């Protein structure tokens, strides 16, 4: 504690958390509305001031109000990586919390108790922040569990619904698996270094098999949390059923703690063996491709977005994989590009995924459904929501000029860099990766054109009486959208931050590949796009004035009575792509064909089930269950068996004793 209060930054830093904890107190208010407003407001103050303190740290602006690196007897440690993730968390949490005001009003109208939700929401946010700064293994685990459990309690806001029970339980079970794996992970680290402090964990190649074990454990453990492909199955179950605020936070931030864990592990064990880079790269590529492909087959908007989280985690993982390969071959340039891409995409994904979830939440609440087949034409009802959603969609598809492109661009450059630095067979493999990533981009385009078009464009498939939005909706979406645009158009400062994070805390040889990319060139090009569009818009206005413009019905081969039901559906839109990998997506179509002379109504439905869930996890559980049910030995009700057991077990033990040497 010595000297804790000697630094303004420390005091401010402590105050930030104190304010956030104070928010919990307000959830105790009797009146739901007051509890919501007061506690959320206090939390917002805490988060905003937290963001300022974070920004004033050495990593960002190096103001005197930044906290010291090591606090509370080194239980809390603030290195570049921690600050960066703290920044991501706080940045994403502020608009999400803003949206809370609007989102929870619907529940208050329905007389559903929300106080527990707010309480656990605040707890989740605090614990997530503490995770990335915790420097003591047990403390880390405690925060990790508190985060998981409080997120779980947030999820069960609408606990009466069966799907909520099921989906949240997936999450609950998955997080327990993670913790068990992390136990072993930390035990091994503790055993190797004799310390419980994360900052003391430095292992070297001489530790051989232990390094591999630690790496595998961290990749599986944190990978489950992050949602890499074979371990992703809880994600599409849990995200749709969570309240939107929570899905946004879960998808935007909580799964990033898994990424934080993997990168942190890298710092413990670097330089990593090269196979680990390939493992991460291949798993991530599979996650990216199939994540987005699964997303394309979904009709449930939140499930779709959940699968997109798998995809984006895959992209982040690709960056990490590149960094690992660079580390294994001692190529700082590649490391900077790989980890830089991963960290940037972490930030970007937090922004646009939260945006998309919140946008979808607004739509779902107004339409009272998550099925996109029942939506449509909302652009006429809520133009700005549609616009913000569009910005998020463009960003997540990795299309210029928004932020998604920036991080993908860094990752692409990372591939080129590996191919350039390591000749031999690397170019071929990297080319395949490049193509894979481009393919992911193409699928994302397909998916988000589908989502945008079906939800917002065309005409309304379901009667919407009143589309209710509040200022908070626009505020939170607006902040996110502005961030998407800002990072996209002016990436240089953000890249510089990432550069500094890697240079400061990754302890690798300096390299300026990341910062020396032509960022201003990109900004100029994007600027010129905007200029070009503006110019053409003026031309267009002039043209309309001169040659006129009018509105008329769409071409329908002369048919007059077009109805909203005749629009192209999401199922049909994605059908061709989904059919191609139907066996992995478990994509099945039900076409109700009529062969009668007078046609009856036809039906077309398509469904996709998760392969890992349906073909691996559930059958494994089912097998286990049926196997267990065959074990009748403990199922006796007769006391004579109980007594016989004593005799038998004594005989067996005695035999063991006799045979004991």
């Amino acid at each position, binding site marked *: 504690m010595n000297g804790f209060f000697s630094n303004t930054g420390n005091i401010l830093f402590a105050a930030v958390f104190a304010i956030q904890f104070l928010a919990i107190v307000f959830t105790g208010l009797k009146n739901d509305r007051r509890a919501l407003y007061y506690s959320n407001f206090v939390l917002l103050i805490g988060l905003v001031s937290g963001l300022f303190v974070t920004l004033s740290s050495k990593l960002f602006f190096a103001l005197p109000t930044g906290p010291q690196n090591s606090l509370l007897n080194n239980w809390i440690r603030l290195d570049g990586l921690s600050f960066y993730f703290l920044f991501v968390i706080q940045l994403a949490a502020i608009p999400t919390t803003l949206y809370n005001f609007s989102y929870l009003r619907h529940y208050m109208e329905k007389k559903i108790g929300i106080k527990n939700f707010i309480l656990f929401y605040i707890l989740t946010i605090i614990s997530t922040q503490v995770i990335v700064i915790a420097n003591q293994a*047990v403390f880390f*685990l*405690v925060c990790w*569990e*508190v985060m998981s*459990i409080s997120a779980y309690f947030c999820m*069960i806001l609408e*606990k*009466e619904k*069966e799907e*909520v*029970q099921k989906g949240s*339980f997936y999450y*609950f*079970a998955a997080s*327990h*698996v993670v913790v*068990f794996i992390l*136990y*072993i992970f930390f*035990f*091994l680290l*503790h*055993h190797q270094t004799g310390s419980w402090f994360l900052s003391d964990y430095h292992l070297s190649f001489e530790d051989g098999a232990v390094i591999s074990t630690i790496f595998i454990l961290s990749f599986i453990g944190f990978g489950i949390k992050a949602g890499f492909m074979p371990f992703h199955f809880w994600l599409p179950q849990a995200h749709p059923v969570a309240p939107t605020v929570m899905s946004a936070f879960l998808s935007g931030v909580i799964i990033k703690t898994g990424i934080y864990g993997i990168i942190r592990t890298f710092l413990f064990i670097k330089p990593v063996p090269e196979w680990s880079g390939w493992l991460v790269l291949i798993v991530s590529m599979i996650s990216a491709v199939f994540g987005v492909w699964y997303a394309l087959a979904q009709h449930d908007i939140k499930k779709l977005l959940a699968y997109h989280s798998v995809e984006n985690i895959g992209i982040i993982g690709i960056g990490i994989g590149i960094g690992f390969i660079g580390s294994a071959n001692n190529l700082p340039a590649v490391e900077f590009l790989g980890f830089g891409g991963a960290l940037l995409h972490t930030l970007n994904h937090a922004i646009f995924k939260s945006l998309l979830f919140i946008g979808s939440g607004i739509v779902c609440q107004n339409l009272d459904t998550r099925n996109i087949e029942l939506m449509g034409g909302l652009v006429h009802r809520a133009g700005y929501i549609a616009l913000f959603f569009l910005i998020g969609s463009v960003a997540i598809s990795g299309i210029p000029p928004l932020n998604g492109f920036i991080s993908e661009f860094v990752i692409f450059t990372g591939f080129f860099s590996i191919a350039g630095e390591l000749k031999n067979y690397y170019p071929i493999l990297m080319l395949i990766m490049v193509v894979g990533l481009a393919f992911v981009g193409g699928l994302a385009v397909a998916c988000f054109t589908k989502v945008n078009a079906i939800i917002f464009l065309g005409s309304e498939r379901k009667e919407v009486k009143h589309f209710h939005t509040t200022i908070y909706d626009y505020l939170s979406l607006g902040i996110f959208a502005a961030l998407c645009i800002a990072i996209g158009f002016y990436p240089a400062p953000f890249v510089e931050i990432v550069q500094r994070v890697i240079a400061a805390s990754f302890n690798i040889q300096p390299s300026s590949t990341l910062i020396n990319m032509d960022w201003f060139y990109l900004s100029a090009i994007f600027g010129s796009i905007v200029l070009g569009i503006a110019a053409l818009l003026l031309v267009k206005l002039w043209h309309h004035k001169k040659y006129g413009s009018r509105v008329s019905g769409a071409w329908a081969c002369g048919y007059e009575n077009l109805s909203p039901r005749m629009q192209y559906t999401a199922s049909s839109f994605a059908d061709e792509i989904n059919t191609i990998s139907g066996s992995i997506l478990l994509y099945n179509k039900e076409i109700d064909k009529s062969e009668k002379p007078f046609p009856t109504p036809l039906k077309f439905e398509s469904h996709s089930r998760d392969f890992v869930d349906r073909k691996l996890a559930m059958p494994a559980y089912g097998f*286990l*269950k049926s196997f*267990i*049910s065959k*074990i009748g*030995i*403990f199922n*006796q009700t007769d*006391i004579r*068996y*109980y*007594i016989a*057991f*004593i005799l038998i*077990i*004594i005989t067996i*033990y*005695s035999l*063991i*004793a006799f045979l*004991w040497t």
Partner: protein
Amino acid sequence: MIEFLVFIGLPLLLAVFCYFMQDMIVQFGLTLLAAFSHICLSALVFFGFYEANLPVFFGLDALSKLFLLILSNVYFWVTLVSYSYLKKPVMPKAEEGKKFYFMLLNFYLASNSAAILSSHFGMYWVAAEATTLSVAPLIYFYRNEEALEAMWKYLFLVSVGIAFAFIGILLLTLSAEGTPLEGRQLFFADFVKNAGVLNPIWLKASFIFIFVGLSTKIGIAPMHSGDVDATSNAPAPIAALMSGSLRITALLGVMRILQIISGTSCYEFARVILITGALLSIFAAFVSMFRINNYKRMLAYSSVEHLGIITLGLGVGGLAFAGALFHAVYNSIAKVVLFLTAGNIHRRYKSRQVDHVKSALTSMPKTSWLFMLAFLAISGIPPFGIFFSELKIFEGMLFSDVPALLVLLMFFLLFIFINMGRIIFSMLYKKGSDEPALPEPERWESNHAVAIILLIILTAIAVFSPDVLYQNIIDITKDFGIRL
């Protein structure tokens, strides 16, 4: 002498008194007083403020200090909620059972204290059997068929089991033949001191018999059935008492013989037996959780599981041994909360079937939240204590000579957790087909307060990790000759 009076004499006297005095309030008040003095004195003894001086056959060492505190802690809280529990019993037939409730409770305290404090195997055996006898009628509190069956099975199985333990004790004397101990009394301390010269064959045999015999009482598979039946059918406070303290007392017997054996060449063998038994019990809990349909039974199996974990820790040794002792402390507290809240649910829904309990979280929010928290606590989720003790056990296992077992253990624990969670959440959330018309709001009851206090204690011990507890457990491991 005063300590002997408080620990054993007073409850015994009160038991007699309660037999004649029929007024419930007086019985309750006196019992509570005895419980309070018991907890005070055992705390004083534990913290080292009071040097206890007990008559022959009795004695105190680090281990019994710890277990005595566990007992008096559990007993005190259980007594505290007993009165309100008795006022509103679930079954109408229970009236008859109330008459002997406090008498048996006092008798239980006396016999259990005697068992823990005993320094002699024979004394331990007599007292342990007496605890069975005091608990058996309490199991039959509801006076229904299930309770009767449970009581019969428990009484019979444990009696047979404890008879085997007696054989084990006799075999122990046999092992001392031809040594300086021959013809001497069966004091633990003597045996521990001269452990090296004991005949290993008989020592092994003795260990097997004592372990298997007491397993019926601890609930180590495959002898756990009687225990499970009894715990699941006993009234909530008694179930809490059994899970929290009685099983630990039985475990004490095993630990005594383990202490002797730990200094001899048979230690490896004893470890194998302990680990086998422990894994079998965890496996039994694992198997049962898949098909269980009765939440009290589920909790009983959870006890089987956790006693299995404790035994596993004892068997593995090292850090896991210390972890197991911490686990014993935490488990006893968490189990009390679980059983008390489950008792509330039982009282409301009049059924132990999981399917009959619907949307408990809305109809009885206080109990349900506590129940859920207790479930989280027992599943080893921080910041509750069991997390920390499990951490120690896991770490101890990973770096012992049996690291592979950790994977097996985690596999079992994971599915136990998943299945328990499935059951508990379905109780708490699942909507019933017919909602009762405006269920009356749940009022605060004494057992809510007790549950909250216990959960706070559970967290506080873990978070502040008091030195005295830590030191005590270090002392115990020293007694056992185990290097941390």
